[in-house]
């Protein structure tokens, strides 16, 4: 068990600066997920922790040891790759035993550990098969098993579920979580899928263009994104944005554009006051929009025209036009809305997000 500390980490491939001054602390037994769009440097960061990529500058500590110069084999880590990277010429048993054989474990010990891991993962019946005789999900389990048997100090996962079909992915996600809870090994997990990040991570790191945007618990990222990028990346369907102008009237702060006229909460008003007369980005999550009833105050809603109705079953997504902007509202499945209907949407003033239009930082 170990803590991983990343200090001022940088990586350049020639002129391309792919990881920029990353500082992270992965606590002992924590499951940390690094999420971001492709090319954001998340995999490179993970590979530097693994020792597969050299470090341009900065430090990586596993436990209390600086591992910058240690080869992968001496870092006491295990990694699960996106394409599983099973050794095709070896049986499942040999695949799992390989790491232990390389470390000169005794046959009895190897056998015990492989059996134990196989039992946890439910692959005991396939131990004699070759990887090509297994389905995608089974291969994924073997890849996990190969990591587990070593009892490493840190697990590294590089998009391990992205080659699986949607149903299996959900299932394996749950299993991964269970296995982590059971073993309690520190884990760093890289993915581009924000749902995976939110469901698996004790904490989640959002990266973009090599820079860490925000680190926090899943709900913290969802409720209090610190940048517009995090706000748009976390949550599905993603957050609606509209450019609005900040004005002061009737003793309150209002945000206005051609289709919207909302009075913000007193607390937010204080923060928005210095933007009076300027434009900011308003962010509203689809699930924070609902149909207005007659009780809703006029200053907390706006009119919208329905353009598309997506019936998902548990909810209905309304693609609506507000002024000239498009928004998505996730409403109750009981709502009977038709295309071209004109309706009024209400917002919760506590759940509005505002971002500086230049720095994109949350206000």
């Amino acid at each position: 068990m170990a803590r991983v500390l990343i200090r001022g980490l940088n990586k350049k491939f020639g002129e391309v600066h792919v990881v920029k001054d990353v500082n992270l602390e992965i606590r002992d037994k924590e499951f940390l997920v690094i999420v971001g769009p492709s090319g954001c440097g998340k995999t490179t960061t993970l590979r530097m922790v693994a020792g597969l990529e050299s470090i341009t500058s900065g430090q990586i500590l596993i436990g209390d040891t600086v591992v910058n110069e240690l080869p992968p084999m001496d870092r006491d880590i295990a990694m699960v790759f996106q394409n599983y990277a099973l050794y095709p010429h070896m049986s499942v048993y040999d695949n799992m035993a390989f790491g232990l054989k390389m470390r000169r474990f005794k046959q009895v010990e190897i056998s015990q550990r492989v059996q134990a891991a196989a039992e946890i993962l439910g692959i005991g019946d396939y131990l004699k098969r070759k990887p090509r005789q297994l389905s995608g999900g089974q291969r994924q389990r073997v890849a996990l098993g190969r990591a587990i048997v070593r009892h490493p100090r840190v697990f590294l996962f590089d998009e391990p579920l992205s080659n699986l079909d949607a149903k299996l992915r959900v299932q394996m996600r749950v299993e991964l979580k269970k296995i982590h809870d059971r073993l309690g090994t520190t884990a760093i997990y890289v993915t581009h899928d924000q749902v995976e990040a939110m469901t698996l991570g004790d904490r989640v790191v959002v990266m973009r263009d090599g820079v860490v945007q925000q680190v926090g618990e899943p709900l913290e990222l969802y409720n209090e994104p610190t940048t517009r990028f995090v706000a748009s990346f976390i949550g599905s369907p993603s957050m609606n944005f509209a450019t609005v102008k900040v004005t002061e009237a009737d003793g309150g702060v209002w945000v206005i554009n051609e289709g919207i006229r909302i009075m913000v909460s007193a607390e937010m008003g204080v923060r928005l006051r210095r933007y009076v007369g300027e434009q900011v980005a308003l962010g509203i999550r689809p699930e924070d929009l609902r149909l207005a009833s007659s009780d809703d105050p006029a200053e907390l809603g706006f009119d919208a025209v329905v353009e598309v109705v997506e019936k998902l079953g548990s909810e209905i997504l309304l693609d609506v036009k507000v002024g000239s902007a498009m928004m998505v509202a996730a409403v109750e499945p009981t709502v009977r809305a038709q295309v071209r209907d004109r309706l009024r949407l209400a917002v919760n003033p506590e759940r509005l997000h505002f971002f500086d239009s230049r720095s994109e930082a949350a206000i």
Partner: protein
Amino acid sequence: MIEGATWKRWVFFYVPLTVFVVSLLFPFYWMLVTTFRPDSELYRPWSAPNYAPLWTTHPTLDHIKYLLGETLFGTWMLNTLLISVAATAISLFCGLLAGYALSRLKFPLAGGLGAGIFITYLVPQTLLFIPLADIIRNYHLGDTPWALILTYPTFLIPFCTWLLMGYFKAIPRELEECARIDGATRWKAMLYIIFPIAVPGILSAGIFAFTLSWNEFIYALVFLSSPEEKTVPVGVTSELIRGDVFFWGPLMAGALLGSIPVAIIYSFFVEYYVAGLTGSVKG
């Protein structure tokens, strides 16, 4: 398979394929028939009434007996085998290491070195044998098997290196990275993971190298002179063509017996070597 009307299948598939197969196999058939044809039939003129060029009515083993009894054919076979196996082993060993290094390791001039090796392969043997002959003479290797064992790798190593390089590149890098995280050194990862997976590629490189050295003619002709040191291709042509007289029967018998070992090797490893050439690694 070509889809559509029957005539299309015939015109675009069966007929061209038949022409191809027949024209490819006919020389071998001719070799076979000539081997077993008695001299009386061989030297019968075209205009003779019972002239039958495509088959023989009195098959005979005379030519084979002559080849094995009156010439040094057995010695030539052994020479060829020894030289081919040794040259192949040397080339395969060097090609494996070079191919691995060029496809996996990052070092300065890696690209240039790879291209350089390829270019040496392009230098024609007909040009290269002149300086090589000088070297062979200076090291007093002329007329010994070493003359060929050491010169064949000049074209076999580039060949093996390039074939294996392509094969190694097709093996996912993650396999090796995973092995290294699992506790293997680069050397062990190469030995336990990469090489076993590359077996089809290694086998096809080996088969090709073996065939190339088995059939090689120019170097063998230039560097060897005594009959008992010769290889099959040179021995057969130099000892069975005297002046302008072609001993067709024993010549063809020599060609037939000389191609049997290669045919056997191919048939043994055909599956591997097709996989090796198409470069398919299944995860």
